């Protein structure tokens, strides 16, 4: 049987299994059995042999042991970054995704969105077969219909950067087709500006590890911009103070923004400007660097600050990097000019090895919509994009689609656009299919399936090839890909190696001269410094979880709270406290935001640190055809408290895409208030020494600065002490590296089968996350932070991952009446779920509040979703307490592995899911008893401290102070002065 072409041919199978196969979703047991075996067949076939048949495992295949997990290299398609991944596949089903260490894009890191792609794979809301007008049809029907119209059709896609993929597109174009690509969150302005200034319309490669000074104008490179995992990783290498880095080397980040972004939160200095002032500030900087590019409009940044910042750039020279996420080409031109003036091209950004992660052409898209409206497009094939939802003028696009005679979608969901099409060719999930990518010029990355396709779906490439009548259309797309790459692989690499490694290609330094700067292009930027401000400006941004909205059906991501506001399951209208007051709205009030021709309803929320007169709304929410997304308990609609849901907005927020590019917005209260599902409602540390921080200057003087005031615990205990004779597992979290991205949280949830509980339960403060990222704000003048204060404040933000601290003197252990939680002789605080009777006393007595109780039966009610569960971890029943185990299963694996080979456990041999996926290496795990382990060394770092040390819990998880690259604050100096007083 050829995979994907005919699901009813089981000629090789025994009759019993054949019958089971036909009722594949009848029962969980059968389903698991069959898909497990079938998928294993696919995996084996995919990697080693040419045998394309599904067979029961009567004979154990060589190299595959049931119950043992294998890693397969692939490529993440969660956003346009195309990070390299490893799929952990066990018994034929992927159960975990991790960064591919050899990937030059992301290394071992993978963001929350990337981690969560497994949900999309197993989500039963996906299309199960091709459809026509919403009704299932046979592939032959849709193929016949599409073949008739495919020649001369217009193909609308997102970025397609794979060489083989593009060869298919070229074949399509050769048959008279037209290809248009766009990115929902566009970076077209960057490419366009470089076309004008350097003659190459590309997005440069950014090298944050080379930059000592980064000025970011609304480019959220730590959050969602182009390739956030790789950028964060590179940036963090310049910030890492572990192991005695010379402090002078630490880079500085200055963020100019209106909203509070993840990048802004991590910036050493945040300059609040409205979007309308951005051009003027850029022009001002350029002017101070000696460029007379045009008039500099009036902006709000004080003269002294501008002079100082310009000087800073000058000092950094070619080690500076100025980036902007602006959609305005003129502003991009100014940024290019500044980078060029500083000599940064070739050092911190480079056009010789450009990014190919966003290849969308907005001009071509505009032309297409024009053509569609004019009726000159006969056939439209929409593939993998959702323009009706994610274009600013989505409604216009929908209308224009009405004038297209034939509309076909290649999509895995009947989303807003696909459901408007006549035909939908059900597409494989990215984890079920072959594909290739070239995220950065010269670097390829392959995607291979980790599971046999779950439903009657097909690769989009296969569909396209079939429809244009190409002979390859009758082949499995793997064959096409293999043939292409066998001819095109870099020298010294064969197909098997390429599939095994998943990525390869260009390495080392770029060669050749960097393209020169064309000063003449700057004439166009003459007006970039003009300021046209509005009373209420709107800022849209890509959300950190749902990104451009394609992950709206993903429960893990919906439940992952926004790092800044800690709100899950909806987007909100962020405003500064003063703006909230001026607009007369309060937290949770539903407001209607309208621009010309569009509006959306979202709840309002206070965001301290935003520029006044600005409302910020994240993209990705407000999907109307995202399927029955998980809400309440399980998937029953009726489990949702109607009070929580506003008519029409459901659990999914409002669509902010129509606001892209809008300058001004009007806001009106609807008179309705909803309860926001916040995982944390208090954003001040209340002057408690929980997240400790200092300035670089102070740290250089005294590496213990910021951490001086540890109150030594009175070390008495009623019970005998533990002596850890063998291992003593522990973690050190570097607060200086943590950027708050929450990848650890999602990774942990997947690794440990942590349930998604839904909006109502989150509102009740019952989210189950074993690791959370606490966000604390601190007033810029050092006084106690009050988020409701309407005075002008520019708070500093800190992130602190908080998980079970595995205390030596664990308060939870003494109070459990049945010893369901106890101490291992290796320092782990272990939880025996089977023994737990659910008194919740342990959770009450936990000073870190990291224990999570199963208030209801949270396990998946949907059987397909059960495939995602990690078989190494028990699914906890109702009434049981659970919490971080430091990935005990991984520790056991590591110990077994070491015992098998009779070696000691080397540093890095065991990595919990959170530490594994962290893009910035903020979490270090290891054996505290082994002086060779990094974690043991970090324990002696002067920055090391235990949270709440004074209550003598003696945690196994400790933290390293956050060091900000900015002058010391008065309050911090005072602390140090007091400390000296103590010493004498």
């Amino acid at each position, binding site marked *: 049987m050829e995979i994907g072409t005919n699901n009813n041919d089981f000629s090789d199978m025994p009759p019993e299994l054949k019958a089971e196969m036909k009722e594949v979703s009848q029962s969980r047991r059968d389903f698991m059995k069959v898909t497990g075996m079938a998928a294993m067949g696919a995996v084996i076939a995919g990697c080693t042999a040419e045998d394309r048949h599904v067979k029961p495992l009567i004979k154990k295949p060589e190299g595959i042991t049931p119950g043992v997990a294998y890693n397969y290299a692939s490529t993440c398609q969660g956003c346009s970054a195309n990070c390299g991944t490893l799929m952990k596949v066990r018994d034929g089903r992927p159960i975990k995704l991790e960064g591919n260490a050899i990937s030059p894009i992301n290394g071992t890191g993978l963001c929350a969105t990337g981690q969560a792609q497994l949900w999309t794979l197993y989500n039963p809301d996906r299309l199960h077969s091709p459809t026509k007008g919403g009704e299932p049809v046979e592939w032959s029907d849709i193929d016949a219909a599409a073949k008739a119209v495919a020649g001369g059709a217009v193909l609308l896609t997102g970025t397609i950067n794979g060489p083989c993929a593009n060869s298919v597109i070229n074949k399509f174009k050769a048959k008279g087709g037209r290809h248009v690509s766009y990115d929902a969150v566009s970076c077209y302005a960057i490419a366009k500006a470089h076309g004008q200034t350097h003659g190459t319309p590309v997005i440069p490669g950014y090298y944050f590890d080379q930059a000592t000074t980064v000025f970011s104008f609304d480019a959220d490179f730590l959050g969602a911009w182009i390739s956030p995992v790789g950028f964060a990783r590179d940036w963090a290498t310049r910030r890492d103070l572990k192991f005695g880095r010379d402090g002078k080397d630490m880079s500085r980040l200055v963020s100019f923004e209106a909203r509070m972004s993840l990048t802004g939160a991590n910036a050493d200095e945040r300059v609040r400007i409205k979007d309308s002032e951005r051009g003027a500030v850029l022009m001002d900087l350029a002017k101070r660097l000696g460029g007379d590019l045009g008039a500099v409009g009036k902006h709000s940044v004080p003269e002294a600050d501008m002079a100082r910042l310009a000087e800073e750039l000058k000092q950094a020279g070619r080690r500076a990097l100025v980036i902007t996420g602006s959609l305005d080409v003129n502003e991009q031109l100014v940024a290019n000019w500044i980078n060029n003036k500083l000599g940064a091209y070739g050092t911190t950004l480079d056009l010789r090895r450009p990014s190919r992660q966003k290849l969308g052409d907005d001009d071509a898209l505009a032309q297409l919509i024009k053509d569609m409206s004019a009726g000159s497009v006969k056939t439209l094939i929409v593939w993998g994009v959702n323009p009706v939802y994610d274009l600013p003028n989505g409604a216009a696009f929908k209308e224009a689609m009405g004038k297209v005679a034939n509309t076909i979608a290649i999509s895995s969901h009947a989303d807003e656009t696909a459901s408007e099409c006549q035909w939908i060719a059900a597409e494989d999930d990215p984890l079920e299919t072959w594909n290739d990518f070239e995220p950065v010029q010269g670097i390829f990355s392959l995607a291979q399936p980790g599971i046999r396709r779950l439903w009657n779906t097909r690769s989009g490439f296969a569909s396209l090839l079939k429809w244009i009548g190409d002979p390859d259309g009758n082949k499995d797309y793997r064959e096409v890909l293999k043939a292409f790459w066998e001819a095109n692989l870099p020298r010294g690499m064969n197909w098997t190696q390429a599939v095994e490694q998943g990525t390869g290609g260009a390495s080392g330094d770029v060669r050749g001269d960097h393209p020169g700067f064309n000063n003449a292009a700057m004439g166009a930027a003459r007006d970039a410094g003009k300021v046209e401000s509005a009373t209420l400006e709107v800022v849209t941004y890509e959300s950190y979880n749902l990104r451009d909205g394609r992950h709206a059906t993903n429960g893990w991501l919906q439940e992952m709270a926004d790092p800044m506001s800690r709100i899950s399951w909806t987007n909100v209208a962020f405003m500064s406290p003063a703006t909230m007051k001026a607009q007369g709205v309060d937290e949770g009030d539903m407001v209607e935001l309208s621009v010309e021709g569009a509006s959306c309803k979202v709840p309002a929320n206070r965001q301290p640190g935003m520029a006044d007169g600005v409302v910020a709304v994240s993209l990705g929410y407000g999907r109307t055809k995202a399927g029955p997304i998980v809400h309440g308990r399980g998937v029953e609609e009726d489990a949702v408290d109607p009070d929580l849901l506003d008519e029409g907005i459901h659990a999914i927020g409002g669509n902010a895409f129509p606001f892209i590019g809008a300058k001004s917005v009007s806001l009106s209260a609807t008179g309705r208030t909803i309860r926001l599902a916040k995982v944390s409602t208090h954003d001040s540390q209340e*002057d408690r020494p929980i997240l400790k921080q200092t300035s670089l200057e102070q740290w250089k003087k005294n590496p213990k600065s910021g951490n001086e005031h540890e109150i030594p615990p009175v070390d008495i205990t009623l019970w005998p002490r533990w002596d850890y004779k063998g291992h003593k597992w522990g973690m050190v979290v570097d607060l200086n590296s943590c950027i708050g991205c929450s990848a650890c949280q999602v990774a942990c949830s997947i690794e440990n089968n942590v349930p998604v509980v839904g909006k109502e339960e989150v509102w009740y403060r019952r989210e189950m996350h074993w690791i959370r990222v606490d966000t604390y704000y601190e007033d810029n003048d050092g006084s106690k932070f009050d988020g409701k204060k309407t005075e002008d404040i520019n708070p500093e933000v800190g992130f602190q991952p908080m998980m079970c601290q595995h205390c030596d003197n664990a308060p939870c252990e*003494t*109070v459990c009446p049945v*010893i369901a939680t106890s101490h291992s002789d290796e320092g782990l605080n272990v939880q025996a779920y089977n023994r737990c*009777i659910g008194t919740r006393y342990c959770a009450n007595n936990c*000073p*870190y*509040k990291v224990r999570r*109780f199963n208030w209801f039966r949270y396990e998946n009610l949907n059987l397909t979703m059960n495939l995602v569960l990690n078989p190494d971890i028990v699914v906890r029943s109702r009434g049981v307490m659970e919490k971080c185990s430091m990935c005990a299963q991984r520790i056991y694996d590591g110990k077994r592995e070491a015992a098998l080979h009779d070696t000691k456990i080397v540093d890095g041999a065991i990595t919990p899911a959170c530490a594994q996926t962290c893009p910035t290496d903020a979490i270090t795990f290891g054996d505290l008893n082994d002086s060779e382990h990094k974690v043991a060394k970090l324990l002696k770092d002067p920055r090391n401290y235990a949270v709440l040390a004074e209550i003598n819990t003696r945690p196994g998880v400790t933290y390293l102070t956050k060091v900000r690259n900015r002058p010391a604050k008065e309050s911090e100096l005072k602390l140090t002065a007091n400390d000296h007083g103590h010493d004498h």
Partner: protein
Amino acid sequence: MGTVYSKLRKPLVEGDKSLHDVTHDVCHSIEGKPSQLWWFGFLGTGLVTLLLVAVVGWLLYEGVGVWGLNKTVGWGFDITNFVFWVGIGHAGTLISAVLFLFRQKWRTSINRSAEAMTLFAVVCAGLFPLIHMGRLWIGFLWVAPYPNLRGPLWVNFRSPLLWDVFAISTYLTISAVFWYIGLIPDLAAVRDRAKHWARRLFYGTLSQGWNGSVRSWNHYETAYMIFAGLATPLVFSVHTIVSFDFATSVIPGWHTTIFPPYFVAGAVFSGFGMVLTLLLITRKTMRLEQYITISHLENMGKVIILTGSLVGLAYGTEFFIAWYSGSLYESFAFINRATGPFSWSYWIMVSCNVLSPQVLWFKKLRRNPMVLFVMSIFVNIGMWFERFVIIVTSLHRDYLPSSWSYYYPTLIEVLTLVGSFGLFFFLFFAFVRVMPAIAFGEVKGVMKMGQTVHHDPKPAQPEPEVSNA
């Protein structure tokens, strides 16, 4: 027999009763047809008990999530109710055992119902630790230290919750036995008066062949004395151990060494509050005003003002220590109690427990049943809120502000509390129909039979007023 009054000591039973009158008055209420008022109360509270069954059933079916608890506030109404009912359960044994040992004869009219109340309160209290468990179906077994096949896995003797299990079960057992022993002579009297064979059999079995001989009385009184001696330390130990649930923890607002005496005082305070409420109802509905006299009520009022003041002192001490300790977290916990989001509950507690008993300084008000009734209700409310304040306000904002939360009880929780009152009163109504509500055997012992006679033409005047307490 002539009416006999002491000038110095007022009689403990009013109305010039003969011994037969006493037996008749008490037994009549369980022999005749019950009054409409009783039926109303019995069936009404029975319905509320059914409600309790329903909400607990729903809880067991759905999970603890039907309550409003969350990751930060793991205990709310459940343990509040538990501590509240345990506290109520203190007065009975205190009245029976402690007052017995101190030879406080006025206790005889009220000890029986107070003991019954204790039992029922402990039953209600015991319900909550059971249903608060996530997995009751195994939990109730696993907290018992019984020999098992799980190898070294045993209960955790370090856990205050386990100490609770022992403390509560011991207390329940001793209270029940003590109550039952006290009942035996009265049950025998009821048996002797019984006309129907079934009644004879029932009360005959329960009275275990009591024959009223001097020998029997001698044994009885020795046994009673021994049990009083055994029960007395329990009065103090139970709530001390309950307070350990909190005092041994690390949570600011819980971790307080003052808790054992503070909890015991509070328990006596709330117990007397509830006894007062019940007796005021009983003496009215069962027409026992001559047995449960105004003087009884007044004495209880005095205990209430004493314990109420102790509780008030404890509130003050907590604040002082919070400030004096210099601990950031400790001081915050108390400032938060009085001014934070749950300050409303704190101020309800203070008004009910510290302010409302102040009326008892005035004799006139102390002897006014209506005032006492209203005040006793306030004490009940206040003491419930005391436990709520301790549990919820300490938990909802502890160490890490990121986890601070609020606690919104659900309707299910409120109905469970209401239901527990239903169960309590239901059991009490059943008790007064089945068992003699007054220990008439003992009452007879404190009546002034055969003592020095002062011939006085008039009933005793209130003056000179001498306390009986």
